[in-house]
């Protein structure tokens, strides 16, 4: 009833002012909340930045330690490896020298055999070539002789005919 009475006696302007005051109050409250939250966020950000900074510091320190550690490990490892490589190279050189000596020794023994073989191969090639030539030559010679014989046979035939005809000439 009060409200009804109030509403009856309140004008629309009053109502609008009331609404405006309420709105402004609500807005103010909201702004305050937002500001508080922003401040909280800035704090959180600052904390995070600090944390990051700490982390970076830690990481830097950690990496330096790791680096140092790795350096040590690698040095140890490579030194051992270098020693082993040096040993290996020495072994290889020894083997190579030994091989060369063996090769020289083998070469000395093989050379006469090789010479003999080369000589035989040359002789074989020569005889093969000679044989080939002989066969080819014989073939050509046979062909030539056949041709001569054919020509000779033809010549003989012609001569025979010539003599026969010549005798007839003389009998006419």
């Amino acid at each position, binding site marked *: 009833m009060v409200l009804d009475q109030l509403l009856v006696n309140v004008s629309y302007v009053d109502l609008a002012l009331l609404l405006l005051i309420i709105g402004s109050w609500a807005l103010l409250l909201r702004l305050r909340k937002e500001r508080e939250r922003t401040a909280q966020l800035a704090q959180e950000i600052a904390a995070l930045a600090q944390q990051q900074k700490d982390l970076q510091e830690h990481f830097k320190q950690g990496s330096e330690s790791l680096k140092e550690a790795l350096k040590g490990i690698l040095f140890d490892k490579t030194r051992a490896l270098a020693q082993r490589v040096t040993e290996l190279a020495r072994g290889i050189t020894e083997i190579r020298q030994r091989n060369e000596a063996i090769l020289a020794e083998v070469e000395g023994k093989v050379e006469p055999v090789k010479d003999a073989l080369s000589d035989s191969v040359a002789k074989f090639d020569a005889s093969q070539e000679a044989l080939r030539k002989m066969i080819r030559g014989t073939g050509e010679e046979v062909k030539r002789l056949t041709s001569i014989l054919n020509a000779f046979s033809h010549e003989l035939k012609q001569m025979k005919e010539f003599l*026969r*005809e*010549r005798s*007839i*000439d*003389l*009998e*006419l």
Partner: protein
Amino acid sequence: MRESVVATIVFADLMDSTEMAKNLTLQGYDDMLVNFQSTLFEVVSHHLKQAGYVGNGVDAEWSVVGDELRVFLYSKEVRFDVRNAVLIATKVKLAWLISDFNQRILKEGRLVSRVGVGINCGDVMKGVRQWRVRMGQEQSNVEGYAINLTKRIESASREGTAYQIMVGDSLYRVSKENKQLNLAFGKPRSLVFKGLGQKIPVYEVISFINFEILPSMPESLQKGLLAKVEYAVNRPMPEPWIFVTLLRHYISLITAGDSGKLEGKAVKLARQALEVLDHNASIHNMLAWLYTYGKTVRNLEMAFFHLDQCLGMDPTNRAALLHRARILDEMGQVDLARHAYEEILVHEHDHPEAKKKVAQYIGL
């Protein structure tokens, strides 16, 4: 270098060429001349190569100037040169007879253009003239009395009646000594030639029996050769020498196994020749041969008749005497055959067949 060699010289030219030059147009005469010169080239170059002459002044040389052919053969074998000279002469005549020019004339029924030939042997000087060398022509020059004489002898060829191949006394003697050369000559004519001042004996070839003439013609002239010769011999007034050449060729074909119709054809041609030729001893001989050895025309009596005819004209004809002796032997006339063979030996002491037969008869 100049040297003296014994050369056999052949001169040949177109008979009545001046007359032809008058009657033909300039172009027509030149066409004929080109045809004649080409024919000479074909025949002479082919024959010299075939006979084995080196040419180019080594053992032979030849040239053609206008309508005149000059051939010099000096292989140092005079008999060989003589035989080749006569062969060249006959081949030239044959080649000109079957030439396009003469074939046209034959078809028109006119007298063919003939070639007159003079052949002789004699010493000539052979050498290269310096002025020729300077002209860039290094062929040798042949000069000598024998050449002038041969030229004169050749000019007498138009008076011939058989081969119109005239020869000088030197060649006649060489031919008589050469039994392998079946050449027969007419009676000698003593002619006075301009510039020679004395009578010179000249002989005409009246028979030259040689199997080589037709088959050894150049290949370029071989096509239709026999048919052309047969055509020429059957035209009016054929040249007498064609009969002997063609009959000899028929006999070659018959001996090679081509008898049958050819024997009859040969007999017919020989009979025709007897009517045409003045000197027909060789034709009688050929007829006797056909009647003796022919398969389809064999008739020994006819053979005997023709041999008698031949011997009547030439009593020493070796071929006729031989065939008569053979026929008598075959007929069993022993005494007559022996007599005939003995007669051969009178003329030719070393005749192998006659000697053998006479020995056989004595042994009987």
